[in-house]
């Protein structure tokens, strides 16, 4: 049994219709409210109830280039660790990553309360020769402001846009800000497509209700999602199983890009520990932190995991990301570049 769009949603703190989000705790708890996720007792998945308006193919050159890369080999995406609101840091990190990755994800930062707005940051990055994949959340802007950002991202010529609902302001370091959530990832996706942008969305295979997650991916694809970027969800076999279940739910393979965490120091490991529903391969972080040279071993284990994931069934690419201690942004960008180059990015 499944639900049909626009089930009662008043109780979701993020005003979601197409939940549950990826922030559901292992015990079924809401990421914000001290109670269970309101979607868990409901019929799932919530079916996409869009109006069937045709969706656009990507109209940016970078978006078409990404599709061309994906037609011949897996896509290798890198995170972008630049310090927030720093043009100089953008420039330095771009220089470290240029030519080593197929595109660079500029998403929310685990350490930055405020960032430059998406289109402006993308413009700075594109000016440095990067192919940009821009993260856009629904936490900070309503639909009008989001539409403007999408139009601006297209004007900047980004490769794609990663549409996320976003963490609630009550669960991070923005407690004084109003959580907007006029839209959510599923309703942002078709708007991004109609703006002529290639789209991606996130899914957390390890977050409850685990058995409904593949069908939720299928609904996001129906809404306009093209690429599914996975939260860290365990071993390579777990990724393969999720990709297969997703293809079955959608009736066709969905391009799945699992995450490859790059950990080079304790600060980065702590950052990773904050991610909701993230499950890492057994002993992954311990192997890095116990090494004599964590940076060298961190790169090594990321390359090993990335290589295995790229050979896995149903995997269309990887997203290599993570963080390091403050002031180490450029060094971390260089480490990212080493990993993505080894995995074939930028070729």
């Amino acid at each position, binding site marked *: 049994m499944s639900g049909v769009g626009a089930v009662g949603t008043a109780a979701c703190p993020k005003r979601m219709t197409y939940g549950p989000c990826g922030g559901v705790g292992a015990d079924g708890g809401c990421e914000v409210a001290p109670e269970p996720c309101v979607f868990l007792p409901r019929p799932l998945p919530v079916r996409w109830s869009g109006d069937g308006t045709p969706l656009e193919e990507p109209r940016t050159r970078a978006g078409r280039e990404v599709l061309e890369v994906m037609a011949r080999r897996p896509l290798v995406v890198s995170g972008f660790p630049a310090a927030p609101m720093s043009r100089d840091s953008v420039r330095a990190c771009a220089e470290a990553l240029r030519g080593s990755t197929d595109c660079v994800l500029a998403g929310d930062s685990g350490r930055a309360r405020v960032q430059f707005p998406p289109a402006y940051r993308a*413009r700075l990055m594109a000016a440095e020769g990067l192919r940009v994949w821009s993260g856009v959340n629904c936490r900070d802007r309503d639909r*009008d402001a989001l*539409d*403007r950002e999408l139009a601006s991202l297209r004007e900047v010529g980004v490769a794609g846009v990663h549409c996320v609902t976003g963490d609630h302001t009550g669960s991070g370091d923005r407690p004084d800000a109003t959580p907007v959530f006029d839209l959510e990832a599923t309703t942002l996706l078709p708007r991004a497509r109609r703006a002529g942008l290639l789209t991606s969305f996130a899914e957390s295979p390890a977050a409850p209700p685990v058995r409904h997650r593949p069908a939720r991916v299928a609904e996001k694809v129906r809404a306009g999602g093209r690429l599914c970027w996975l939260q860290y969800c365990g071993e390579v076999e777990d990724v393969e199983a999720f990709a297969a279940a997703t293809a079955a739910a959608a009736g066709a393979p969905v391009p799945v890009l699992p995450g490859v965490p790059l950990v080079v120091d304790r600060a980065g490991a702590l950052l990773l520990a904050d991610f909701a529903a993230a499950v890492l391969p057994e002993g992954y972080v311990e192997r890095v932190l116990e090494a004599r040279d964590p940076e060298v071993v961190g790169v090594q284990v990321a390359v090993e995991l990335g290589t295995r994931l790229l050979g896995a069934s149903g995997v269309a690419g990887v997203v290599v990301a993570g963080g390091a201690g403050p002031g180490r942004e450029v060094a971390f960008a260089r480490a990212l570049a080493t990993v993505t180059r080894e995995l074939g990015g930028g070729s």
Partner: protein
Amino acid sequence: MPTWPLRGDAPVEDRLRPGSRRPRAAALAGALAEGRPPAPAVLLGDGPPPTGPTVVLRAAEAREAGEDVWCRIAVHDRNRVAVEGDLAALADLDVAAVVVDADPPPGRVLDLAPIEVARLATYAGLVVLVAGPVGEPERWRRAGACGLLVGTPDRPRAVAL
């Protein structure tokens, strides 16, 4: 008339990085302080949705073309985190001024009172011009506002507050 959820005069030091005035903003502030006419500038705002670009992108393009820019900052469709990001970008671009509407249009998001936006913008190193009914000028001055927006959208002018 929207009811703005005023949040008092809480310090903002933990929100935005403090910025010193960059050349264009400093020139405008100097002109206003000395009663001289400011350099001509274009007045920009957000484009209409769904296809209009953001004011920040428009400002980036105008600055690249060498123009002096004044930007009308929107607060009715985004929360304070987004506003702070916009202000940081506009400061980075060395826009000469941001224009804060004293009586902004109603919207879905009522997160920041106009006077708080003025305070945040000043903190970021921007020159603030107020548009619309000022009411108590001293309150705006305390928030850092320097001038009033007058003239027309095509030929904006500023006078000292």
